[in-house]
């Protein structure tokens, strides 16, 4: 397919508009395409070289090329449209700083990039008043560049090797349903049941192919816009930021596809959290949604220990093992230690339990976003949360620590509840594993933990 005039201008500067018109979506799309090609070339140039890798506070890697690409785009933006805001991963502005914003991820799928696999992408979105109007996602490894804008259909441009002509196609590449859907799964430590279900669907013929791959979610969403595969990502931990998914989701939607969450409703790509499915066909999306893990699937620790304070160390050892297997951040593990210490001690010192009582049952489990701890003992009915909150403002001489343990539990967990169930005391605590949800104005940024990056959308 020959190039349209917009695409031709990328390779022929004489065709470009002389003035940048910030009110024209077309102008922004040209700018994004130009920046994306430059960025992808910069990334591609170093892709197979030894790389300088630093570690960000959240434990994820960043290369010098990540930083230099974002800086270069920022400088170009400053020249063309000084009022525009650059919203980037490596340090930049927020949506709302200006009506015009460009959200950039120089390399989405940094781990994949560092492993020299092709599942990485440079992602750019132009937002006007907080709404995506144009987007480009380029794969520096393969030379595929996808783009779309308001009034411009989604297209893929294939960059030329030597002596080749660039070619471009309108998306999707395939028309209509053709056989059983192909499903692409993003792995995480809690994805095993999802993968098992997908494999079972493939064995039974309901899925045409199952492909498990990490890397850039933005790239996988773009590939879904080709019309062949449906992509499932659990996206636990942090809510998406404007440069994570918005460009790719916009392109897929312009191609006629959709990105949905559990229940089938479209996601808000600027701040989504939780599992999502991206694909062109409703049949593929419904099949993929049926693979998404349910609470029943979640991994757990379950043990019974004698009602004694000596048992706490044993519980802690099991919790530490669980935490390392299922990517529980250290700050959450330390909270678990504390609440177990307080609750078991409480059961023994106030709850009338001792080593001759029935064992204390402890169960701990997680899903994508939450962790639960449940402790049951067989002592007389006793609601620890019914005690008065201790006065924490008293001076040294007046203070005692009665009730402080329970107060700590209530403050350090997101939900703490007591129930009397079948003659046993049952305390259930909930802790959020994810980051703060950013406000629509983008005020709250992610707080640093390593959990998301290496658990899920390996970026």
């Amino acid at each position, binding site marked *: 397919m020959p190039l349209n005039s917009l695409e031709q201008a990328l390779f022929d500067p004489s065709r470009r508009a002389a003035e940048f018109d910030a009110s024209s979506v077309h102008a922004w799309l040209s700018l994004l395409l130009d920046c994306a090609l430059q960025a992808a070339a910069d990334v591609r140039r170093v892709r197979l070289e030894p790389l300088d890798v630093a570690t960000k506070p959240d434990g994820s890697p960043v290369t010098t090329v990540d930083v230099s690409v974002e800086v270069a785009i920022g400088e170009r933006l400053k020249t063309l449209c000084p009022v525009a805001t650059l919203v980037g991963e490596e340090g930049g502005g927020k949506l709302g700083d200006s009506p015009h914003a460009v959200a950039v991820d120089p390399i989405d799928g940094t781990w994949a990039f560092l492993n020299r696999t092709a599942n990485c992408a440079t992602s750019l979105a132009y937002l006007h008043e907080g709404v995506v109007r144009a987007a480009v996602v380029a794969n520096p490894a393969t030379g595929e560049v996808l783009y779309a804008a308001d009034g411009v259909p989604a297209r893929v441009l294939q960059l030329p090797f030597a002596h080749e002509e660039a070619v471009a196609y309108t998306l999707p590449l395939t028309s209509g349903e053709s056989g059983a859907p192909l499903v692409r799964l993003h792995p995480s430590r809690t994805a095993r049941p999802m993968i098992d279900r997908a494999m079972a669907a493939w064995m039974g013929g309901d899925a045409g192919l199952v492909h498990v791959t990490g890397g850039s979610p933005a790239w996988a969403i773009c590939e879904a816009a080709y019309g062949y595969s449906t992509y499932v990502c659990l996206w636990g931990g942090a809510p998406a930021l404007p440069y994570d998914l918005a460009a790719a989701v916009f392109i897929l939607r312009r191609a006629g596809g959709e990105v949905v969450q559990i229940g089938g409703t479209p996601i808000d790509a600027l701040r989504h959290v939780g599992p999502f499915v991206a694909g062109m066909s409703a049949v593929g999306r419904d099949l993929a949604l049926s693979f998404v893990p349910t609470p029943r699937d979640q991994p757990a620790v379950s043990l019974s220990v004698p009602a004694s*304070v*000596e048992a*706490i*160390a044993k519980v*802690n050892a099991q919790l530490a093992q669980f935490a390392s297997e299922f990517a529980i951040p250290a*700050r959450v593990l*330390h*909270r678990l*230690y*504390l609440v177990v*210490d*307080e609750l*078991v*001690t409480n059961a023994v010192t106030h709850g009338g339990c001792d080593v001759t009582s029935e064992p204390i049952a402890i169960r701990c489990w997680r899903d994508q976003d939450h962790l639960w701890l449940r402790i049951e003992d067989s002592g007389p009915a006793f609601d620890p949360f019914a005690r008065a909150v201790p006065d*924490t*403002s*008293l*001076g*040294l*001489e007046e*203070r*005692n*620590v009665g009730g*402080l*343990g329970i*107060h*700590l539990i209530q*403050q*350090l967990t997101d939900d703490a509840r007591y129930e009397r169930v079948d003659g046993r005391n049952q305390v259930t605590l909930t802790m959020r594993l994810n980051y703060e949800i950013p406000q629509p104005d983008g005020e709250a940024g992610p707080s640093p933990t390593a959990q998301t990056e290496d658990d899920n959308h390996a970026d």
Partner: protein
Amino acid sequence: MQISNETAAGGTIVRFVGSLDTGTAAQAQSHMTGLIGSVEGVVIADLGGVDYISSAGLRVLLATGKKLRRSGSELRICALNEMAEEVFEISGFSTLFKIFDTAEAALAA
């Protein structure tokens, strides 16, 4: 839990390494009780090596703080990690004790 003392000009630094919880509270309490009356100057509890502190650990610090004050001395705290700092905030202990980033700063205060 490992507990060690270091005598410095103006006080004694007690370094805790491990978890300060129900399982270690008795050990920590007897160590601190042994110091009272036998050391000169202030006592600094360096919690830099403590991964978490439960209310049992807070009880030890409170009892030690009260006893030291009665004997004319003072308990100061230093090097709280993020979790311990949160526990101190919630329990009101951050206003009960003078808290410092380092043992040196606690000694110099």
